[in-house]
């Protein structure tokens, strides 16, 4: 183990290797490592952002769903109310109509009765006059006795 020129040769070789490694090996490897680290970090970031977006969207969807459900319920309730109202109205209308019809009928009936009464009265008056004529066998001045007969007729 004698020391000789190999010592210096080794030192030079060592220096050259270190220089080469520092110049051509270390930087590209380190750079690609760092770039990949950045890429991965970005990817993770994007993933978490997307996750958050998804959560937000889901929340929004839930919100919309809840709102539309509420609206549907509201509309349904309104429709119920409206239909009840319509039924009520129809019932009222029908009742009013019925009453009106009954009133009409009554009025008609009254009219009929009055007319019949009137007719009867007239007939009775004629019959009475006829009867009286026959009884008296003489003509009675119709004009003369008209007032008397009418009076009689109203009393009937």
């Amino acid at each position, binding site marked *: *183990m004698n*020391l*000789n*020129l190999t010592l210096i040769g080794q*030192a030079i070789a060592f220096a050259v*290797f270190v220089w080469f490694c520092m110049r051509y090996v270390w930087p590209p*490897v380190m750079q690609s*490592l760092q770039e990949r680290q950045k890429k991965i970090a970005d990817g993770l970031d994007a993933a978490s952002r997307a996750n958050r977006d998804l959560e937000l969207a889901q929340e929004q969807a839930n919100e919309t769903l809840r709102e539309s459900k509420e609206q549907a319920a509201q509309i349904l309730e309104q429709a119920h109310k409206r239909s009840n109202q319509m039924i009520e109205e129809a019932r009222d209308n029908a009742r009013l109509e019925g009453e009106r019809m009954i009133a009409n009928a009554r009025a008609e009936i009254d009219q009929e009765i009055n007319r019949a009464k009137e007719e009867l009265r007239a007939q009775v008056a004629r019959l009475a006059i006829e009867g009286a004529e026959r009884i008296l066998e003489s003509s009675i001045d119709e004009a003369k006795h008209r007032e008397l007969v009418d009076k009689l007729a109203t009393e009937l």
Partner: protein
Amino acid sequence: MAGNNPTTTEYIQHHLQNLTFGLHPEHGWSIAHSADEAAEMGFWAIHLDTMGWSIGLGVLFLWVFRKAAKAATTGVPTGLQNFVEMMVEFVDNSVKETFHGRSKLIAPLSLTIFCWIFLMNLMDLVPVDVLPMLAQKIAAMFGADPAHVYFKVVPTTDVNATLGMSLSVFALIIFYAIRSKGFSGFIAELTLHPFSTPNKFAQALLIPVNFLLETVTLLARPISLALRLFGNLYAGELIFILIALLGLWQLPLHFPWAVFHILIIVLQAFIFMMLTIVYLSMATEEQH
């Protein structure tokens, strides 16, 4: 086995000798034919096997990582990119945990240290005779005497390799210390700690003591860094060589030691890297 039926000692020595090329006082620039010749070359010699394997493995490491880096996408990574990114992240985390300053150099430095040392250590798991024998066969084809072809496959069992790295780290430690504290701050740290007193005269007396202590502390770092790695791998290699001498018995022994060694080679690479980061962060921070 190497050579013409060498003795056990020769076998071990042969395995522990590097293929040395250098300036021999008698033969001039040549490849050493024996350990003695290699020793005679003194400082002006170079271990061809250590340099070859370590540069080869370093280039392999950088080629693989560069390939992955060029093809790096920010999409889903596959195969090689996965592995490279795992290593880079592991080193980056280790650096971030320990080194709190900002530096473009520390992390790639740590990655290079870890991967390179790991690959060099990994050569220890190749059976000890395979590559040396291959080298001898190839050398024989070119007319060399196989007995003189020494071949040490694991660069980290060569103290030159580990010390070369740790001295580079040491230079960085001093550079960072001076950069973050200034030259005077660096000197002050060497001379005014650990003993300090408000009394100026007593302080002046304490400066040499402090300087001695701190210099030892400072120098102990690269030396311990280098010798720890070297010692572990050298011992591991030696045990592999000893096991290889056992004949048939090496089979049941080789496997558990190899399994245990997997732990050692990763651990030593990791320790070298962590200590480098720790030393550099200590150099950058104000107090210790």
